[in-house]
């Protein structure tokens, strides 16, 4: 069973990570998941879970996952935007948990956006 002690261990670990982040001055990468009725119904929650799990697994620093409302392209949900400082926003559409793992690996970690998953490829 999950215990308070485990939570305390997470706290200590996270505090160490936070101080490393401050030292290196890593800029923040933001992953934004559409979580309006349309996004949720299309499967945004497992996508968001997959991002959180993959970031935890790789212990990535300076990457945050947040949510947004409906951006008016409901037919392409679940939609995920990746915002990196100094780079153009990348909008991924019809996301799945599997695609989310690939986005973390290829795009966030290795710096190669996956063109096939983007809104540009979907609307061609």
């Amino acid at each position, binding site marked *: *069973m*999950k215990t*308070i002690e*485990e*939570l*305390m261990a*997470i*706290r200590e*670990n*996270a*505090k160490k990570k*936070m101080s490393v982040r401050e030292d290196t001055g890593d800029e923040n990468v933001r992953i934004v998941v559409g*979580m*309006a*009725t349309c996004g*949720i*119904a299309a499967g945004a*929650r*497992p996508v*968001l*879970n997959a991002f*959180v*799990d993959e*970031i*935890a697994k790789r212990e990535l620093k300076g990457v*945050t*996952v*947040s*949510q947004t*409302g*409906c951006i008016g392209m409901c037919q392409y949900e679940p939609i995920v935007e990746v915002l990196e400082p100094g780079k153009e926003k990348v909008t991924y559409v019809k996301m799945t948990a599997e695609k989310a793992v690939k986005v973390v690996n290829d795009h966030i970690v290795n710096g190669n956006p996956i063109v096939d998953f983007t809104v540009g490829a979907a609307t061609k």
Partner: protein
Amino acid sequence: MRELSLNVLDIAQNSITAGAALIRIEVLENTVAHTLTIGIYDDGCGMTEEQLESVLDPFFTTRTTRKVGMGIPLFKMAAEQTGGSFTISSKVGIGTNVQAVFKTDSVDFTPVGDMASTVATLISMNTDREFLYRRVLDGKDFVLDTAEIREILGGVPLSEPAVVQWMRAFINENTEALYGGVSQ
């Protein structure tokens, strides 16, 4: 929506939009009466009587206020199709209470689904709010309270991935224990 926990995720977003500081989510099951009651209670800005009427009408709201839209009508339908009931009450400046009662022995009953993901998502995406999640089965219960977790974390954000995973596992394990499943 394929599971009720997705409706909860959706409805609770309205509480966030309403500026609620504390959002209480309760899932109460009574196996004798074959009922499952889901409540979402907030201390947000509340609604006027006209707004309250309009949220129940999907065709009125989707065309005028995008903020509310289909969420409430879908949740209401999910409850009523089981022979259950749905109530929403609200007072400007006080908050909004949404409660849906489901008949669990109905063929049209949608499973509760992954409440752990719903609650962990809501908490991690809205770390400036307090959440109180309570699951009750025939009088036995467990609670997840962000105020308590926040105190233990001492400055580490509730959105920290390891914390989100801990909250998900905490809810899953306690739910299994409540329902007599395997747990340590």
